[in-house]
């Protein structure tokens, strides 16, 4: 029995390794803000959100659509979904109620398991009732399959046969064990046996045949009693294990259900928050990784939106058929925010979430990497350029075609000519390897060098600056300019005193 609410045909693996550049992405895109909005302080929701968002890069187009549909169902039926989520949590908690279950004393393991199974069976019944009652309100493939699985597997007859086992396994008539001779002629291979004949109990059958050899342990023989109870334990060992494991399996079923629903609960939380602010959201249209598509209206930085009271500025760009986007222009003009919105929207789309935009469509990428200018290295181990290049080299070790790479003011730790040369060589090689590059830069030689080549697959954006020096935080298409208006900034900070 599987919930299969994240993938059509497999579990969502919470142990799956996050991408190696997880830390850089989290820092550069401000992902913790996003995860916090999804989890509302719940550690587990945070963990699932992080895993789902960061591992989404490895999932295919079909999975994205599969989750989008489930998420649409969740938005429609949010209280039912949260109810199922609560049942899952309650079931997982039930295991903690029985001490015997964790005991090393085998008969206690057995009776504890019976107790826990009793509770779990009741939970399964509850779940089954929800399925019976509400299945017609859900349309997605995922939920439909989940509900019909519950119906199929959890019939009334099945519940009855489980109940039967739970009674018989208390062994009112003693135990029947088969054994053979092992190493050193010691008994081995103790297996608990159950009579095939339902009408006549095995006890009766054995005593109607000529008996074998019987002996009794006297009341005073303590070590004998201990030896006997060990034999008894060997007999019930496997069945106690099977039962305890079955309880575990049912708990894992609920755990997986909880984990998978946690992602959607996180999405519901985020959706609620953004809707409250009146920010637009839409389900994005993912395109195959081999194609080049990136077009959107009103795309905003979701993390900025979550941390500001007022609504934030969105951008409209059509970068279809482009492999390289070079973003230049005014300081404090929204370049970094824009770059972050590119990264965030890509991650959100690829894990099956809605996009922070009025409309959004882009090609799926196989990996997302970021290379941002960092603070000076304080360990004195290497110079700043050394540090940047070494990070770049790590990225190169892991990047593949159809990945996406976000540069933010990279390779500026040397003079402009050399920086441009390095940036140029690296960017050219990346493009030839079909890697989609977004490059925020002040390196004029580098940016303009590409502009002069008049390549079809390159688009240039510029942070807008009105003639009075004011920023609109909007990006417009345009040729790289030689100054980034640092003078403006200088003047603003130092005033006109000079």
């Amino acid at each position, binding site marked *: *029995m599987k919930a299969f609410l994240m993938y059509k045909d497999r579990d969502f693996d919470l142990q799956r390794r996050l991408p190696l550049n997880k830390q850089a992405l989290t820092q550069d895109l401000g992902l913790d803000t996003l995860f916090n909005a999804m989890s509302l302080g719940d550690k587990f929701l945070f963990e699932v959100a992080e895993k789902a968002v960061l591992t989404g890069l490895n999932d295919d187009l079909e999975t994205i659509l599969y989750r989008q549909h489930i998420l649409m169902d969740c938005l429609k039926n949010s209280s039912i979904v949260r109810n199922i989520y609560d049942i899952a949590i309650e079931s997982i908690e039930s295991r903690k109620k029985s001490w015997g279950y964790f005991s090393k004393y085998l008969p206690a393991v057995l009776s504890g398991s019976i107790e826990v199974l009793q509770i779990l069976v009741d939970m399964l019944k509850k779940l089954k009732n929800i399925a019976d009652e509400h299945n017609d309100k859900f349309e997605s493939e995922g939920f439909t399959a989940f509900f019909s699985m519950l119906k199929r597997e959890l019939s009334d007859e099945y519940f009855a*046969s489980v109940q039967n*086992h739970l009674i018989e396994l208390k062994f009112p*008539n003693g*135990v*029947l*064990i*088969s*054994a*053979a*001779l092992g190493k*050193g*002629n*010691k*008994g081995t291979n103790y*297996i*608990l*046996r*159950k*009579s095939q004949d339902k009408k006549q109990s*095995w006890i009766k059958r*054995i005593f109607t045949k000529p*008996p*074998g*050899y019987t*002996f*009794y*342990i006297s*009341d005073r023989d303590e*070590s004998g009693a201990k*030896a*006997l109870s*060990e*034999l008894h334990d060997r007999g019930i060992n496997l*069945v*106690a*294990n*099977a*039962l*305890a*494991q*079955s309880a*575990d*399996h*049912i708990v894992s079923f609920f755990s*997986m259900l909880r984990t998978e629903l946690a992602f959607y609960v996180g999405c519901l939380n985020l959706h609620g928050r953004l809707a409250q602010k009146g920010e637009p959201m839409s389900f994005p249209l993912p395109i195959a990784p081999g194609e080049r598509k990136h077009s959107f209206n009103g795309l905003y930085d979701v993390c900025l939106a979550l941390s500001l009271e007022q609504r934030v500025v969105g951008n409209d760009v059509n970068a279809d058929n482009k492999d390289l986007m070079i973003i230049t222009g005014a300081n404090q003009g929204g370049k970094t925010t824009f770059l972050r919105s590119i990264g965030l929207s890509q991650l959100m789309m690829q894990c099956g979430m809605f996009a922070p935009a009025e409309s959004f469509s882009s090609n799926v990428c196989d990996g997302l990497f970021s290379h941002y200018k960092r603070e000076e290295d304080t360990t004195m181990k290497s110079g700043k350029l050394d540090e940047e*290049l070494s990070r770049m*080299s790590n990225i*190169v070790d892991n*990047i*593949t075609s159809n990945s996406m790479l976000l540069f933010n003011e990279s390779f500026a730790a040397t003079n402009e000519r050399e920086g441009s*040369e*390095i940036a140029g*060589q*690296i960017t*050219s*090689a990346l493009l*030839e*390897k*079909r890697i989609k590059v977004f490059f925020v830069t002040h390196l004029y030689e580098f940016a303009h060098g590409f502009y002069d080549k008049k390549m079809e697959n390159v688009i240039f954006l510029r942070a807008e600056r009105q003639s009075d020096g004011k920023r609109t935080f909007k990006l417009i298409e345009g040729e790289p300019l030689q100054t980034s208006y640092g003078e403006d900034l200088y003047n603003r900070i130092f005033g006109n005193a000079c």
Partner: protein
Amino acid sequence: MINNKQGVFPMNFHSILFKNEDSITEEKHEAPVFFVDLNLDQIIDAITIGKQEYNLKPFFYSSLNDIDAIEYRHEIMQDLEDKALFENIKSFAQKMRTMREHLAQADKLHYKYQKESWFLDAVEIYCDAVNCLVHNLDIADLKSRGFLAFHEYLRNYANSDGFTLLLTETKKIKADLSTIKYWLIIRDNSVTVRKYGSEIDYSADVEETFEKFKQGAVKDYRAEFSDRTEMNHVEAKILDFVAQLYPDIFLNLDDYYRKNANYLDETIGIFDREIQFYIAYLEYVTLFKRVGLKFCYPQIFNKDKEVYDYEAFDLALAYKLIMEKSSVVCNDFYLKDMERIFVVSGPNQGGKTTFARAFGQLHYLASIGCPVPGREAQLFLCDNLFTHFEKEENIKDLRGKLEDDLVRIYNILTQATSNSVVIINEILTSTTLKDAVFLSKKVMEKIIQLDLLCVWVTFVDELASFSEKTVSMVSTVVPENPALRTYKIVRRPADGVSYAISIAEKYRLTYDRLKERIKS
């Protein structure tokens, strides 16, 4: 339990270590005196570690004085370099070890049927060990005199009536015992034992009911039962009842146990120990080969004093470095024509002592018939090896130390013959340079007179060019950074003394390199 009743076969096999009975020497239990100076004690410890049960050290304490005796071992060692044969011998050894453990266990047990069962298993393992080994030697491409003779011996033994009968009886009783199955019915304080009739496996039945929930790995709740080898009285009682249910099988077992007490062949027992000399050494060698270091079978002479070894190294140091995952520096050396003495000088911590030790190790290991470090080597079979290494520093007693130095070197020079090898490491340091030069020259004259092969590590540069018999070797440093040691010892007279793109290149981030690096 050792016998050689079966000693009716051609007895031309004597020992896998010694080519004939004359060459078998009494086992020494003390290491030669120079072991500590040359770190041979560490080497032999590392070789024999985990093989204490064989008591192999005496084999490493006695050198051979005959070139053919060395050759006899080389041949066997070379046969064993065949991976398959090597593994087969190891698996034979493992079986013999398991057999011994079983016998020891049988000795310890009280209940008769249990004791007999362990004994039965021991014999079964032994028969299997012998048969496998015969088979494995049949298919091996043996070339050594030692293995060929042993193979012959073993084949005859395995075909003997005594052995084949032992094998058949063992199999029969094992098979009979394994057919036994019984029922236990435990109810309150009673146990009933009966012959077995088939019923449903209840655990499987329960598992099947809950099968649909299976989600991957879960905790194992099975209780661990201490699998004591001994039985408690309840188990013993049950076993007695089982024996009554199957009386014939257990009578046969009693009889077998009485008859076969002396089943083990003595020659095979000795082979099992002696072959470990080779196994231990080859396993040790593998550690070094794995990191690219080389070993070779040296040419050995007992007249010609021209010696050489290319890519030699100190085994004790190399072992330590490999454990630390550091790299090992190899050195070349040769002495030709009149040359007899290496005078090693140069910067401290540059590998001088290591070089001297390696020279001694090579000659000793060669003399016990082992392959030695190096790509290609020719070594001298000496009658004795002498070392003179500085003893623990003792500041209080300067005069005593110089005196002690001289007494020791005197003793060495009186015992040494012209066929000895002498290794001297930094002696006569406890005096003025002038004295040291004077005394060193005196000692050197003696060494030359005796025509000794010698390595002498010294700070006295004058010794390096003392005569045509001396060869100067110098430890070296990296020219640009004298603080870096290379640990290379070379034959040389003693001398008493923009950048951004290039960083990108360093990180392999230029256009061309990137195109190679990024996977499509």
